[in-house]
């Protein structure tokens, strides 16, 4: 083969290589940040919530299977957090208010999980709970006292927590929805309250019909 315009041909080949590279690197131009890629992957994998022991704001201890048969709406936080977590919890309470009352407690459980079990004892969690209008029953705040169990949850759900030098944590945030079998089925943007509430209501509604 003797192409007459060789550099144009090689430029074209390079361009095609570039398109393929970007296509693979961004999962088909869908995920330009690792966070988007993480969420997409989680929704594909539907990981199982590990059966860990929780200790809630009332000081009660039980395993996660306590919630079997219910959808569980989960956020991850730590109470000494001054930035994202209050916003995350306020938004969670907004979602809570928008879910039709008939489902609350029967079909869906709200759960805030602390990844700072050392500082967030039941008493601290209880104070924090009141600040966001959680009733402590249909919306509980809990810690996972066993570090190993906590790590397994964070790892399974792709929550990356980096402690900084001031005793704070940098972490990614989202709303997580676990189905009655304990599988993660939705990861939602925590800043889009309406969308999350609509999506959850829709899932609860179709869940009842089944």
């Amino acid at each position: 083969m003797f192409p007459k315009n060789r550099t144009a041909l090689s430029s074209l080949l390079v361009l095609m290589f570039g398109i393929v590279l970007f296509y693979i690197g961004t999962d088909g131009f869908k995920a330009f940040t690792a966070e988007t890629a993480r969420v997409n992957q989680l929704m594909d994998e539907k990981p199982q919530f590990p059966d860990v022991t929780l200790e809630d704001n009332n000081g009660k201890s039980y395993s996660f299977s306590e919630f079997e048969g219910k959808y569980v709406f989960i956020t991850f936080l730590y109470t000494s957090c001054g930035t994202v977590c209050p916003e995350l919890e306020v938004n969670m309470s907004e979602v809570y208010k928008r879910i039709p009352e008939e489902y609350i407690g029967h079909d869906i459980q709200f759960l805030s999980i602390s990844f700072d079990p050392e500082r967030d004892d039941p008493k601290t969690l209880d104070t924090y709970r009141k600040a966001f209008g959680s009733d402590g029953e249909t919306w509980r705040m809990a810690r996972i006292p066993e570090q190993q169990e906590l790590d397994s949850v964070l790892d399974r759900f792709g929550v990356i927590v980096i402690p900084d030098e001031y005793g704070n944590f940098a972490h990614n945030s989202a709303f997580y929805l676990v189905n009655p079998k304990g599988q993660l089925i939705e990861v939602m943007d925590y800043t889009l309250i309406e969308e999350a509430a609509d999506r959850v209501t829709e899932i609860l509604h179709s869940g009842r019909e089944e």
Partner: protein
Amino acid sequence: MKSPVYGLLLLLALMLPPISNLLESIMITHMHMQMPLLVVSGLFMAKFFQNRFPEFFSKWNENGVPGLLLFSIIMMYWSLPRTMDEALTLTSVEVFKFISLPFLAGVPLRDSWPKLNSFWKHALIIFFTILFLALGWLYIWSPVQLCNNYLVIEQITLGWGFISTAFAMVVYLIYSYFMDFSKYE
């Protein structure tokens, strides 16, 4: 011809775990020191490949444009927030970084640069000035944390790094517009 040896030594040094961990621990040194140094190692090693495969370079990169394109594509790829994040969490991406930056960016740039006329040289610098301004804007004013492995403050530092590099390139462009370099050659 010692330069390819130095390039290879530089690449090997950058691959040493203590050095790569140190440079990757801070976002701005990851992007604005480690990655450019990898390209530099390729610039040094280019002579080896040019001597080894002179036919290939003169035929397929005759006017330098394909090499310039390849260089730009690789550089753009590594300025995505995602690739930088995944280089830290996925070994395959990390390996690709150490291969692509020297051999697919450094080597073609060295081969292309002398072949390019001043139009393409300036086009490349203008392109990267605009890209760096855009990336600086993205990293500084983005409301979200773009990389899971770095803090937001590091992201803002990186953004200013991009803006200052873009500023330096603007200074060069103005300078080259008013000065006649051929008098010095």
